C-alpha cells in the first residue's frame, strides 16, 4: 500500500475522535441518543478510516485482537448478561441498577443493560472487522497467494 503522510495523520485524528465518540454513544445510550448498535457502527467506521489509510494491515494493527474473537466474545458477553439473572433466580434479562461514584467525575447510574449493550457493541465492531478481513485484502496479494 502506498502511504501518504497527510492521509495517515488525518486518519489517526479522525479515527481516534470517532472511537471516543463511539464509546460515548455506548455509555450515554441508556438516556440519550446512542447505544451499542450505533456505538459499534461508529467504531466500525473508525476502522474503515484506518482501512483507507493503510489497508487491512492497519486495521489488524489497530484492532490487535482477531475479529472473530471480538465477535464471539461480544455474543458471549450479551448472552451471559441475559442468562446471568436466570442463574441467580430471576427472569431472563432482568436488569439491575446501581449508582457508583467515580472520583472527580461525579456519580453515574450503571445498569446491567450496559453490559448487554457492550456485547452488542463488540459484535458490531467484530462484524465490521470481519468484512475487512473477508474482502479487504488487495486483489494483487490474493493473486500471489492462490
Amino acid at each position, binding site marked *: 500500500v502506498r502511504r501518504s503522510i497527510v492521509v495517515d495523520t488525518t486518519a489517526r485524528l479522525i479515527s481516534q475522535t470517532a472511537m471516543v465518540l463511539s464509546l460515548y454513544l455506548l455509555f450515554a*445510550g441508556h438516556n440519550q441518543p*446512542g447505544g451499542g448498535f450505533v456505538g459499534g457502527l461508529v467504531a466500525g467506521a473508525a476502522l474503515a478510516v484506518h482501512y483507507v489509510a493503510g489497508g487491512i494491515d492497519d486495521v489488524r494493527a489497530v484492532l490487535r485482537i482477531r*475479529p472473530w474473537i471480538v*465477535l464471539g466474545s461480544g455474543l458471549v458477553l450479551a448472552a451471559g448478561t441475559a442468562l446471568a439473572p436466570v442463574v441467580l433466580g430471576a427472569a431472563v434479562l432482568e436488569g439491575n441498577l446501581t449508582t457508583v461514584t467515580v472520583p472527580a467525575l461525579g456519580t453515574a447510574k450503571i445498569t446491567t443493560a450496559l453490559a448487554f449493550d457492550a456485547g452488542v457493541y463488540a459484535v458490531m465492531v467484530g462484524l465490521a472487522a470481519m468484512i475487512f478481513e473477508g474482502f479487504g485484502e488487495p486483489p494483487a496479494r490474493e493473486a500471489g497467494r492462490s
Partner: protein
Amino acid sequence: MLLTVVYAVWRAGDVLAGRPISTSVVWVDRLGLSVALRLDGFGLLMVLVVAGIGVAVMAYGACYFSPTPRAARTAGLLVLFAGSMLGVVLADNVAFLYVAWELTSVASFLLIGADHEDAEARSSALHALLVTGAGGLAMLGGLVILADQAGTWLLSEILAAPPSGTATGVGLVLVAAGFMTKSAQFPFHAWLPAAMVAATPVSAYLHSATMVKAGIYLAARFAPAFAASGGWRPAVITIGLVTMLTGGFRALRQHDLKLLLAMGTVSQLGFLMVLLGTGSAAATVAGCTLLLAHALFKATLFLVVGVIDHEVGTRDRRQLSGFGRGWGGVKIATAVAAASMAGLPPMLGFVAKEAAFEAFTGAGWWGPLVLSGLVGGSALTVAYTARFAATVLARPAAGPPVPGPAGRFVAPSLVLASLTVATGIAAAPLLDPLVTQAAADLDPRAHEAGLGLWHGLGVPLALSGVTLGLGALLIAARRPVQYLLAAITPARGAADAYAATIRLLNLLARRTAGIAQNGSLPVYIAIILLTTIAVPSSVLVRANWPGWPVVAESPAQVVIAVLIAVSAFAATVARRRFSAALLLGAVGYGMSLVFVVQGAPDLALTQFAIETLTVVAFVLVLRFLPAEFHRRRPALGVPVRVAVSATVAVAVFAFAIVSAAARQADPISDELIERSLPEAGGRNVVNVVLVDFRGLDTLGEISVLVVAGLGVVALGRVGRRQRPARRPPLGREEQ
C-alpha cells in the same frame, strides 16, 4: 460424575421409598416450556448407569489416551455427553427431553468423527447423525402431537393419563421412529457397527452402555401406558426379536473383536426392546435388570478390547495368539463379563435372563412365540460370547510374550466385573429395592421384583438349559454354521440400504436445486419482490382508502425528497458499479436526513453509520468485479424489470398509507415510554427497548450478525481460492 453417583446414592432413599424428586425452572411459560426434571426409580437406575459407567470410562481414558489436544477434546465431549444423557433420563418436559436427546446425538457425532482426517470416521459419524437425527426429528413431531393430545408438556402427566385416538397413534409411531433409530433397532442398526471407528472408551460409553439405551429408556417409559393400544406390542416385539437375531448372526461372522461386541450390542438392544417395550409388569422388571447387567458386562468387555488394542496393536481375532503373564486381570474381567453375557450363573446376566424367560411364561398365546425367539437369540449370544472369550482367554502361542498392561489400565474393567459378580450372587439384597422401584415407577402394576439365582425347577431354568445347549451346539458345529451364514447373509445389507438412500437424496437435491436455483439474480429478485407484495396486496384491495396524506410539512422535506429521488433514479442508470454504489449510499444518507428532520436522532445516527459502512463494504467487494456492468443481455428484459419495480413501488406506497390509517389500538410505544424510566432506569426509550424490553430479540439479532460475519469471511476466502480457476466470478451479473 463421581459427584453425581454420590448424590444419586444419597438421595436414593427418597426415590426408593416411592417419592420422586422433581424440580422445575420455567422457561417460556405460555408455550409450556420449562426445564422440568424428575428423578424416579427408573431415572435413578439410568443415572447410576450413566454416571457410574462414566466414572469407570473416564478413569480408563486417562490411561488409554496420550495427553494430546485431541484427547482433551474427547474428554470434554464425553463430559458434555454425560450431561446431556443425564438430561435425557431426568427430563420431565418433553421439549427439554428432545433437546437433551439431540445433544447426545451431536456429542456422538463429534466423538465418532474425532479423527476428522479419516474419511471413514467422517462418513460413519455422518451416518450415525443422519439416522439418529432423522429419528429424533420424527420423535419431536410425535412428542408435540402427544403433548397436544394430552394437554400437557410433562412426560409424567402424559403417561399418567394417556390420550387415545388416531392422532395419538400417529404420534406414537413417530416417537417409536425416534427410539428405534437411537437404539439401533432393525433396519436402522447399521450405524452402530459403523460407529466403532470411534476410540474404544467412547464406544464403551456411548455405543454400548448408555446412549443407545436412550431409545430403550423412552420405549420403557411409553410402553406401560400405550402397549395395550393398537399395534404397539406386536410391532415392538417383532422388531426387537428381529434385531436380536440379526445382531446375533452378524456377531458370529465378525473377526474384529470390537465389531463382534458391537453386533452383540445390537442383539442385546433388541432383547431389551422386547422386554421393556412389552409393557407387562414382569417383563419390565426383567428389562430393568438386563439393562443394568448389559451396561456392566458390555462396558467391561469393551474396555478389555481397548486394552488389547492399545497394548498389542490389533483387535483382529485371527492375529491374536493368546496372552500369558501379566494378563491375569484382563482374563478375569473377561471371564466374568463373558459369563454374564452368555447368561451363566452366578452372574447378573443369568439373573436377568431367568427373569426374562419367566416374564413370558404364561403370557398368553404369543408367549411361546416370543420365548422361542428369545431362546434363539440367547443361544446365538452364547455362541458369539464363546467366540470372543476363546480369543482373549487363549493360552499364549509360541513366540515372544506380549507384556501385560499397567494395573490402573485394567482396574476399571475389574471393578465393573466385580460388580457383575456381586450383583449376581447377592441380587436380592442389592438390587431388589432399586429394580422394584424402577419397575413400579414405570408401571404401577409391577410387584416385588424377587430377583435371585435360584427360582427352583421350572420353565425358566429349563429354557436356560435349552439356551446353553443350543449355544454349545452352535459352538461345536461352528464350521458348518460359518459356511451356512456366509451363504445366507448378504454382505452389507442395511448399510447398503443406507448408502442407496443417501445417493437418492443427493440426486433429488441436485435436481431440485437445478430448477429452483437457476443462477439468474434478476429472476431471484423479481420473484422475491413479487411474493413480498402479493401477500399484503391481497389484504390491500379490500381496505378503505384513507385519502391522500399531507404532501410535505416543511420545505426541508421537499428538498430531501428530491435528493433521494434523483439519486435513486441515477443509481438505476449508472454505467459504473462504483457510481451506482455511491448513489445508493446517497439515498441512505437522504433517509437519515429525513429522520433528523422528523426528530428521531437515534434512527438518524444509526442510518448514517450503517450507510457509511455499507458503502465501504460495497467498495471492498467491487474491487473484485469489473468496473462497468456487463453489456450481456440479462434474463429479464428492461420492460419486465421496469414493470416489476413500478408494481412494487405502487404497492409499498399504498400499503404504507393504508396501514398507517388502519390503526385501531393505542400504539404500544406510549406504554413503553411510560415504563422506560421507572422499570429500566433509562430515558432513551429506543435503547431501553433494544436492551431491555425486547432484549431477547436483540440477542437473536446479534447471533444472526455473528453468523453473517462468519459467512462473510468464509465467502471472501472461498471466492479468493477459486479465483484463478474460473472466469470472472459472479459472471451472470445484471445488465
